[in-house]
């Protein structure tokens, strides 16, 4: 698969510093600068501060799938602009520009591949394509990904990166929330698991539809995962927002995700989950250290007693 460079275009409601808008290779948190190839090799994680940069769909697939295993489906679908929508710029022009910038037909890439040797269907969003917004094509392709999973009897993994529904398709975009939820329901009927991976940002109509329905839901560090963006909440309620409002670790604390997984561990974590779901015994990634003899009952009671005594 050809590597492509992704222009990060932030259409979303991102409250973080916007250095990345000017230079996608400079860390917005600590200002460390990277060469393009260096950043790819680092999985787009800042070596200095751990900031997770946005990753495009193709690069994400390369990070996760076994080399050469991914086969793309429904690549020829394109948004058709049925509303002939024009705001400050025509939607048709926005689509052309996004395709040129990303080399992608729309904000999601779907197909089948293997991760750690286990087959899976995969749907990966691209924030660089109109803020990862969900319109008719994203909804249809997510449904195609569910069809692929059902036809092959494999799980579905969706990696979300989206500001929400695509306003330029208005009501049709809203309907994709129902369509994608029903795609997940189809997996449930087929007794196949769905793993949702939420990356920065996963908001609006995407977090309120398929992305919220993972049998296992993982999130990348510091990913924004809220229905309403922080600015909207601030403006509507005049409430003081917690500093970590909507961030993945807050979502973990509040019980909305199963784990926050650093990008360097994501492929291994997904491989492990796929093996668990397949019912096979996971092979240990690292050889287990030799185990010390288990403590005797007496030793365990003694340690309990000591802890109890020290509490007084």
């Amino acid at each position, binding site marked *: 698969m050809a590597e492509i460079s992704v222009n990060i275009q932030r259409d979303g409601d991102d409250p973080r510093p916007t250095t990345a808008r000017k230079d996608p290779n400079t860390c917005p948190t600590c200002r460390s600068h990277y060469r393009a190839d260096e950043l790819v090799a680092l999985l787009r994680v800042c070596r200095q501060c751990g900031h997770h940069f946005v990753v495009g769909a193709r690069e994400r697939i390369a990070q996760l799938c076994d080399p050469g295993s991914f086969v793309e489906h429904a690549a020829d679908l394109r948004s*058709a602009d049925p*509303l002939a929508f024009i705001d400050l710029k025509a939607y048709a022009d926005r689509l052309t520009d996004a395709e040129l910038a990303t080399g992608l037909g729309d904000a999601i890439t779907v197909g089948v591949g293997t991760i750690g040797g286990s087959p899976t269907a995969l749907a990966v969003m691209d924030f660089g394509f109109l803020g990862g917004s969900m319109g008719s094509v994203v909804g249809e392709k997510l449904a195609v990904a569910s069809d692929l999973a059902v036809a092959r009897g494999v799980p579905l993994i969706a990696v979300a990166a989206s500001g929400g529904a695509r306003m330029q398709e208005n009501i049709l975009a809203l309907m994709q929330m129902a*369509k994608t939820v029903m795609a997940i329901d189809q997996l449930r009927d087929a007794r196949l698991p769905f793993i949702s991976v939420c990356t920065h940002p996963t908001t609006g109509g995407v977090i*309120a539809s398929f992305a919220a329905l993972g049998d296992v839901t993982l999130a990348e560090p510091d990913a924004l995962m*809220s229905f309403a963006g922080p600015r909207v*909440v601030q403006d509507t309620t005049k409430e003081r927002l917690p500093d970590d409002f909507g961030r993945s670790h807050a979502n973990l604390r*509040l019980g909305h995700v199963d784990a926050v997984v650093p990008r360097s561990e994501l492929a291994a974590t997904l491989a492990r989950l796929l093996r668990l779901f397949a019912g096979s015994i996971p092979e240990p990634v690292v050889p287990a250290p030799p185990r010390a003899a288990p403590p005797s009952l007496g030793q365990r009671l003694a340690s309990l007693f000591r802890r109890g005594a020290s509490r007084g």
Partner: protein
Amino acid sequence: MVRVTDEVRRLRRRFQERGEESQIWDAVLLARHTSRPYTLDYVGGLFSDFYELHGDRAFADDPAIVAGIGTYHGRPVVCVGNQKGRDTVEERIRRNFGMARPEGYRKAIRAFELADRLGFPVLTFVDTPGAYPGVGAEERGQAGMIASSILAMARLEVPVIATVIGEGGSGGALALAVGDRVLMQENAIYSVISPEGCASILWKDAAQARKAAYAFRPTAASCLDLGVIDAVVAEPSGGAHKDHERAIRLVDVAISAALDEVLALAPRDRRLARRAKFRRMGVWGTAEPDTTASGLAAER
């Protein structure tokens, strides 16, 4: 670059013919009219008896959504709807201007599941500017509850008739609108975001709401063209607020007809037909083989 069908061309033409900016803005104002009949007005007019259920059994009762068991033309039904407050500021605030929190959707799900268990048809009434964007609502899982409510409706084997009676605002509206038949009153609106929200994001100015509404046309006629709703329900001349009784009678006729159609299907077929109906929603084309991204780049 993109091969589109005659159907898409026809839709684009229809949109260009769909009224002037002022007409579309009139629908937005009528949909939000504070004298318009609200969910509980329809409940009072359509059901010979209605018993309201309260609470989500986890945290609170959300007055922005009403749910209950009613008798509709002699038949037991479950009814769920967004509810705006009327008359006093206190009542409007108590109903949170129709903006539900996660507890409201959890109450709705509870009612949907009851209906499915007892075999009662579900009637929903949609009228909300959107789900409430508050810190607490977000912390208690607003996004997940909207998704769960959509899923709960998708799974029902009983008939589901949804009627958009005012503002169908975003995911907060869709969470109650996954119907076998979706009806929409003539002057109701249904959109992915409010015209103001759309204007502030795309025009960077909420004051451009009229322009945004014109660009994305949240009207019943447009929703019908796009295959998102099944029928437009006429309103008394001047709007539903002019004559509540007549507005309710017109909605009654439309719901009865839709319910009869859906009752004729077998329970499992209903669920699969509903899934197939939403699967068809959306309009897209395919790439011309010679104008993929690389071809486009070469052209320039």
